[in-house]
């Protein structure tokens, strides 16, 4: 039976660890060996909305494994603009490729693609729902920084109310043992209560604060997100909080030596460029981990690893 990667809700801890192990395995392979693994295979990218970063990461992953990439990253010039149904597009595209990566503004589209196609489907974002390769690469980065995910101390900073990336990573981390969370956000952008539940539906308690400086002293990972002006009904409220969640190098003076700052990127001004050259910057390594994790996923779904 073919495998797909659609949602973190489909994965238990063993499945997640399997993908992280694969990434580790891929990272250990010499480049000249990697480039033979998917020679002759074709990956189709079906992007119904632009996401240059995610698309480039998948393209890099596939090409470094020796495979080719075809597809589209907007729909204006395709038959979709002529009114073709999504299912028909999938049924057509699967005849060109060995696997499909889908990004779509509507929730559930990747699931529909997986039900429609007979080749593996990878979800690269379906509306506000899921973006599992982002979550897996975040977990891989955390594991690389600290040797394990269990017992890591992590601060989520910024827009915890609307960030899909934060919600998904947060829920995945709840599957691990002893993870300690600090939730740093303005009052109006707190993590939604429905996420703060154990697997059995028990209400969990978390350390919530608006003090970024204090959080830096007691965490191993600081996961930054962008606070978007359009989330605020009153622009004055935005002006009040935007600078409180801006990380600068001087604020990291008393931070634990092995602390890493992560960010799903692109950043705007929530991380000052003077952090980039410090030992705390992990966000560009995170980009590289993204390619490796996606290579592991491609190799797994295409039955090579």
């Amino acid at each position: 039976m073919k495998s797909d990667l659609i949602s973190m809700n489909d994965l238990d801890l063993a499945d997640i660890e399997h993908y992280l192990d694969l990434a580790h395995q891929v990272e250990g392979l010499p480049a000249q060996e990697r480039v033979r693994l998917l020679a002759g295979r074709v990956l189709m990218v079906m992007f119904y909305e632009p996401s240059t970063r995610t698309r480039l990461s998948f393209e890099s992953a596939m090409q470094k494994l020796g495979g080719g990439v075809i597809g589209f990253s907007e729909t204006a010039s395709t038959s979709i603009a002529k009114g073709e149904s999504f299912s028909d597009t999938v049924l057509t595209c699967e005849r060109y490729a060995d696997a499909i990566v889908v990004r779509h503004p509507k929730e559930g589209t990747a699931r529909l693609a997986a039900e429609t196609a007979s080749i593996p489907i990878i979800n690269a974002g379906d509306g506000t729902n899921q973006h599992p390769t982002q979550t897996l690469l975040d977990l891989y980065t955390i594991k690389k920084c600290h040797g394990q995910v269990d017992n890591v101390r992590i601060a989520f900073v910024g827009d915890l109310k609307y960030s899909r990336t934060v919600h998904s990573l947060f829920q995945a981390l709840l599957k691990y043992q002893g993870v300690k969370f600090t939730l740093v956000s303005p009052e109006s952008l707190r993590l939604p209560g429905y996420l703060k539940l154990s697997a059995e539906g028990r209400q969990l308690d978390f350390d919530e604060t608006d003090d970024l400086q204090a959080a830096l002293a007691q965490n191993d990972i600081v996961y930054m997100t962008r606070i978007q002006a359009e989330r605020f009904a009153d622009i004055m409220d935005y002006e009040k909080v935007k600078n409180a969640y801006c990380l600068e190098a001087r604020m990291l003076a008393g931070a634990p030596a092995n602390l890493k700052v992560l960010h799903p990127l692109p950043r705007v001004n929530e991380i000052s460029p003077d952090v980039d050259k410090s030992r705390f910057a992990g966000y560009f390594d995170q980009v590289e981990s993204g390619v490796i994790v996606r290579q592991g996923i491609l190799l797994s779904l295409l039955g090579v690893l």
Partner: protein
Amino acid sequence: MNSERHLLIPKIESGIVIDHVPAGLGAGILELLRSYAGLDDAQITLGLNYDSNKLGRKDMLKIIAPELPKKVLAHLSILASGVTIKRVDNYRVQGKYSLQPPDHIEGLARCINPNCISNHERQASARFTRLGETSHKFRCAYCERVFELDELDIVLP
């Protein structure tokens, strides 16, 4: 005239009684039943706002029909789980049970998330899975949003 109760709820010789319907839901159940071929011309009595020890006020339906088809019961379990279904024969209740929420719902309810693909592509027929054995929460297979049973938008046949 034996009792007021008798007057309010005329007995049926044989058929199905849907009892313990939360007040206000009876009319919706009637609409559902009447939308099914085979039940659309059945004799149905609808009673509203009876006193009930359990619910305070309740509605009740009596249907002259040998049974309710499986699909009707599946539909009813979304709209009105918890109601009591009684089989009446020869003026006596021959069997009764409480209608439980379904474990899976497919094709009988729409997802209320307007951005869910099931509301846009004909090939994506909305389906929902119950989160746990005792839960009234259901997850949409497509958008993965979690809904209470009574939030779902029933699709009439």
